[in-house]
């Protein structure tokens, strides 16, 4: 870890990314790097392209211009299923497989993608559910779980694939306020354990305490990118200050 030389490739490199839907230019030359164990928080107004950016990283969406490399390998040279195996994703609406228990939600990828035997997959799934504090809910169906519990299953499902990088797309936005804390708590633990995380979130308490960097995206441009202290205390752009102020007054509470 300590032997990282400057010439090592970053864990994630996004270079001059362009993406349009029809005539609408959604991403206009976005570039940034993430090192291993970084936690980057991405904020920006609705429609600024945050979700699109995340989906470009694991190629759920194809893009017109630019390059993305994971661990030095351009993602367009990787098998897309293999890329997605290495990049976990957590969704605003959880997107759990509704016909499967919590345990089987986690097991599906282990069985079909990683080729684990049923026993191996089950043991690993239980381990991951324990990690997110749901060992006792392994046999519950999504409809029997609270939103917070469902989101934690979603996190366990992604973690079971041993990802190098985790993408979070507003993981707490669909949750009742009293359930936000349990999900942020799990994310905080993950960060402490050294997971590399790219998070779209409006939770400014989390951003201040956990993020190594905050990125402010607006109109498809990365307007500002820097450590939380800089963006909160000394933003270079007036827009950044205004936006973060508003977010802080709306979502500044310390839930975790």
């Amino acid at each position: 870890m300590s032997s990282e030389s400057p010439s090592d490739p970053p864990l994630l490199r996004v270079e001059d990314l362009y993406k349009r839907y029809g005539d609408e230019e959604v991403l206009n030359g976005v570039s940034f790097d993430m090192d291993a164990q970084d936690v980057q928080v991405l904020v920006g107004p609705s429609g600024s392209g945050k979700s699109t950016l995340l989906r470009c990283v694991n190629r759920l969406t194809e893009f017109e211009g630019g390059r993305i490399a994971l661990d030095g390998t351009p993602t367009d040279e990787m098998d897309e299923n293999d890329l997605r195996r290495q990049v976990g994703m957590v969704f605003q609406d959880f997107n759990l497989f509704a016909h499967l228990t919590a345990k089987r939600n986690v097991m599906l990828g282990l069985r079909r993608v990683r080729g684990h035997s049923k026993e191996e997959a089950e043991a690993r799934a239980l381990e991951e559910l324990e990690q997110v504090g749901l060992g006792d809910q392994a046999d519950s169906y999504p409809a029997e779980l609270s939103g917070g519990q469902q989101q934690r299953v979603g996190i366990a499902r992604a973690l079971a694939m041993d990802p190098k990088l985790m993408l979070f797309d507003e993981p707490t936005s669909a949750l009742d306020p009293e359930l936000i804390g349990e999900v942020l708590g799990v994310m905080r633990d993950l960060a402490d354990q050294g997971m590399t995380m790219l998070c779209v979130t409006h939770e400014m308490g989390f951003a201040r305490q956990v993020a190594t960097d905050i990125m402010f995206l607006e109109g498809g441009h990365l307007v500002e990118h820097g450590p939380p202290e800089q963006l909160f205390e000394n933003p270079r752009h007036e827009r950044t200050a205004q936006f973060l102020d508003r977010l802080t007054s709306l979502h500044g509470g310390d839930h975790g």
Partner: protein
Amino acid sequence: MAERAAGTDADSASGSRARFGDRDVGTLATYLAGALFWGWIFLRWLNDWSGGVFVPARQAFVPPSLFRGVAAGVPVVGGAFEALAFAFEYAPALVNALWLTVVLTVVSIALGFVIAVPLAASRVYGRVSAWVSVAYIELLRGTPLLAQLFVLYYGFPWLTRFFRGLPGVGQGVLPGQAVFVAVIGFTLNSAAYQAEYIRGAIESVAPGQLVAARSVGLSRVEGVRFVVLPQALRYAIPGWTNELVYLVKYSSLAAFITVPELFRAAQNIASSNYRYTSMFVLAAVLYLGVVVTATNLMEYVGRRVAVPGISGGEGR
């Protein structure tokens, strides 16, 4: 959602004990009636195929003359006994023909299902194949089933010749060539209708789940196979049951291409005994028995595969 699922469980648990005590009796009676109906039918098939183990082939287990004797002696309810005697006299021949009705329905719905699933999936997820699916589905649903059967039977005589040339066709338990042609017709037609029910069900599965499946590294096909279809097929059960019930009744159209199934058998017998109404009522009772069985069976399947938050008929 969680509350609703729990509420249903609690209702049925307490209900079976106290409030709807008679519902259990009703279920029991349904099962008993079903067991009697099918027990009798299977015994009849066994008897007739083996050349008559219990009674000579195609003769009633209980001689109709028994009821005729009572009918003659009793003044007021005699008519009922006369009807019973009629039923017992002709039921054996109809039950024999019912075999073909069951075969036509079960084989066609099953083969049709095998075609319908990829058809529905490609209509939802395909590009070129979506157009092929749409064209197929609309063609088959947009033209009369009887016309489709006629085209297969009279329009492609080589098809009939092909089946006639297969060893054993029309001998012993293997039905004649017209039955094979009818099965093809019903299969192709039913596949189109089943595909539409399944397509609707596929579209009612939240699309985010397929995205989530792909985000853990499953391919699109695997995502559809392991995430979308298991849910869609549960949602499709009520619509699919409808199609099954229709097919039971539409199988009678095979009569028009010479298949001696239940409807044709009733018609044939009526043309010699001139009791058209009575013969068709008797046939209708048998159709009804099959349809009620099919509905109950599918309801049972629906209950067996139900999962909290997903049961047949939800999600539309």
